[in-house]
């Protein structure tokens, strides 16, 4: 039931992504062409799947890119593959929320050859259940992915199961024009932030736009405060069920958050994140902890250039701003795929710059993961997102991708919502989370 932010397929920032035909974009066209040329070779390498163009082979693809623009983006990727390989792609698009709720039935039932999914624990979980095909051989032929990305695509058994398409950062987003007019400075530390919140509140605005009706957006704030307070390693270990939730370190996270809650928009549990993002755009709230792609949807047209972000302020100097949360979306091959070879050939293409360029040509809201992808048309905002991710010492995915899905949806969503309702009873809350975590993670053994 958990909807992680990446599950809301992202919309681009249309105005500033509109491209002029430049030498660069022509080069990109060439890159697609080159990718096209590379494909028959890849197919041949994969053996019997039949590589020659004009062959009427089909490969099937189960997609959760159901929103209008991401849907077109995926269609562009598949069209590029079809054109270059001659293999036609049959896409089955399902609503992203239903797709997730049904994923285990889907993978054990009648899945498409290739399906869209998320990196991190969420990928590992299904790989470990034996529902995904090992694609280490495909990875052997991929270039342009960092070691971190390869690690994010690797299952518990050390084999690769995932090919990334894009990622995007979580940070604190705001409207620079508003901040300039008010004379507000980007806060560097928690003290700065608290002081700034007081100033903003006295100006009559909400400091933080905040929404948690769907249950997942508040996870983003928890992740930020936890990684700033206790560091990436503790966060990941906590997500993996290896730490106690009654640990004073966790309590510290909630205490910090509770001290900031009065500066958050009230009534968060009844608001969807889209409305919260709109309140930043409408200058009712000063900032918001959210993903770049999500908030960009509220900043369209002339507002598109008036969107900036800063990393969540430093809480514990030991950990600084080392960790960045940047969920990765991509593809996997189902274990029950009908044509593994055709699936792998498609995966090979999906891991190429050509695929990322095709996607970017429609949906500019995300950052391509392959270093070979063309970034020449990036807006300053997109460049900054890209550099922020590239400069990270550690990259987390998102709470519902870094932990067990049942723990995220059945325990953390209700718990964070009740924290927002009643921030005073942290001890009782943590005791309850801890008891449930122990029960759920015990199933691993």
């Amino acid at each position, binding site marked *: *039931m*958990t909807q992680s932010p990446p599950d809301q397929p992202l919309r681009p920032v249309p105005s500033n992504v509109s491209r002029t035909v430049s030498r660069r974009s022509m080069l990109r066209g060439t890159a697609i062409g080159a990718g096209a040329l590379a494909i028959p070779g890849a197919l041949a390498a994969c053996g019997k799947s039949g590589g020659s163009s004009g062959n009427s082979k089909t490969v099937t693809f189960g997609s959760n890119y159901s929103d209008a623009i991401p849907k077109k983006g995926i269609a562009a990727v598949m069209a590029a593959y079809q054109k270059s390989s001659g293999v036609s792609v049959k896409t089955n698009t399902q609503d992203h929320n239903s797709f*997730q*709720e*049904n*994923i*285990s*039935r889907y993978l*054990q039932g009648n899945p498409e050859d290739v399906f869209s999914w998320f990196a991190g624990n969420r990928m590992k*979980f299904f790989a470990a*259940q*034996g*529902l995904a095909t090992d694609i280490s051989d495909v990875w052997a032929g991929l270039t342009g992915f960092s070691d971190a990305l390869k690690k994010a695509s690797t299952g518990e058994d050390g084999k690769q199961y995932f090919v990334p398409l894009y990622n995007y950062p979580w940070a604190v987003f705001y409207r620079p024009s508003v901040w300039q007019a008010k004379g507000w400075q980007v806060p560097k530390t928690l003290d700065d932030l608290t002081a700034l919140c007081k100033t903003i509140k006295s100006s009559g605005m909400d400091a933080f736009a905040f929404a948690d*009706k*769907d*249950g997942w957006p508040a996870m983003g704030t928890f992740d930020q405060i936890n990684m700033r307070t206790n560091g990436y390693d503790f966060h990941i270990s906590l997500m993996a069920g290896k730490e106690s939730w009654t640990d004073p370190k966790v309590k510290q996270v909630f205490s910090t958050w509770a001290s900031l809650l009065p500066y958050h928009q*009230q*009534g*968060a*549990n*009844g*608001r969807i994140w889209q*409305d919260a993002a709109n309140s930043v755009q409408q200058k009712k709230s000063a900032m918001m902890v959210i993903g770049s792609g999500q908030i960009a949807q509220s900043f369209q047209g002339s507002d598109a250039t008036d969107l900036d972000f800063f990393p969540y302020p430093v809480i514990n100097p030991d950990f600084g701003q080392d960790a960045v949360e940047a969920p990765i979306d991509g593809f996997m091959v189902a274990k029950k795929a009908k044509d593994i070879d055709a699936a792998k050939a498609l995966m090979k293409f999906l891991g190429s710059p050509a695929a990322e360029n095709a996607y970017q040509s429609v949906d500019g809201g995300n950052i391509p993961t392959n270093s070979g992808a063309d970034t020449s048309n990036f807006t300053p905002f997109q460049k900054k997102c890209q550099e922020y991710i590239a400069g990270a010492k550690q990259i987390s995915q998102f709470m519902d991708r870094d932990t*067990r*899905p*049942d723990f995220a*949806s*059945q325990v953390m*969503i*209700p*718990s964070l*919502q*009740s924290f927002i*309702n009643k921030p005073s009873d942290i001890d009782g809350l943590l005791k*309850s989370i801890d*008891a*449930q975590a122990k*029960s*759920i993670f015990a*199933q691993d053994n």
Partner: protein
Amino acid sequence: MASPPVSAQAPATRASAARRRRRLSRFTRRDLVILGLLIGIPVLLDIVLIWGTTLTSIGLSFTDYNGFTSPKLVGLRNYHEIVTIYEPFWRAVRNNLLWLGVLGFIATPLGLLLAVLLDKRIRFTRVYQSIFYMPVVLSLAVVGFIAQLVYSRDYGALNSVLGRTSHPIDFLGDPSINIWAILAAAAWRHVGYVMILYLAGLKSVDPALKEAATIDGANERQTFFRVVFPTLRPINVIVLVITVIEALRAFDIVYAVNSGRNGLELLSVLVTANIVGEASRIGFGSAIAVILLATSLGFVIAYLTQILREDRR
């Protein structure tokens, strides 16, 4: 005319029907084949798809089945955890009881009242009927969406109507009041349902009865409670059972509004969340379902006793 109220059933007819029920031995081969097939197929469907799966789930509730690995017996652990550490459970129980209370003590009498009013010979009765029944036919997504339009803290119509624009009430997000907002929506639907059932029942009450009572000097209220209402007993039982079942199975409005979290927990939603979700705790969810099943069972038995009693007459 002034005869005592005729009971709802017509004992003579039923008895004779039963007496004349034919023995199977009198049938031709063709008759037996038709009977066998046309009873056999639906019975098989019912036994396999409904009862078989339900019994299997009862079995699963004693395991740790997660939808992937083969289930392992864990005894009563799921049940123990549900009542001890599974935080939403007791809230769900409370909400289901509230649901039952509101439907039973507010919506159902209101539906009966509307039915009685509409059963008077008034103009435009069909228009009124349609309006009151309309919410019943709307799907969950539509009702959920309308709830958002009416109750939203940021743009909902109710806050505008109440004039709470500067300090709007968070009807959907505040866990101390959102269940009441949703119950209003649930009652909105239930009243129409009950009204139509009673209207149908009232229509088949012999008008002579009422006239007789009026001649005997009873006023309208006395006529209703002493003469009409008793003859509605079978409908009352059906309405009661439907109300209880609706309250226990309540699901769609809450699911459409916020997937049944943050104050809107219901047993059926907890079952769905655990069974249908991404990484399912099927054993655990089945145990909640069994608790729900056991609760409904009492009412189901009462209902069946009623049926069988009717049948015996």
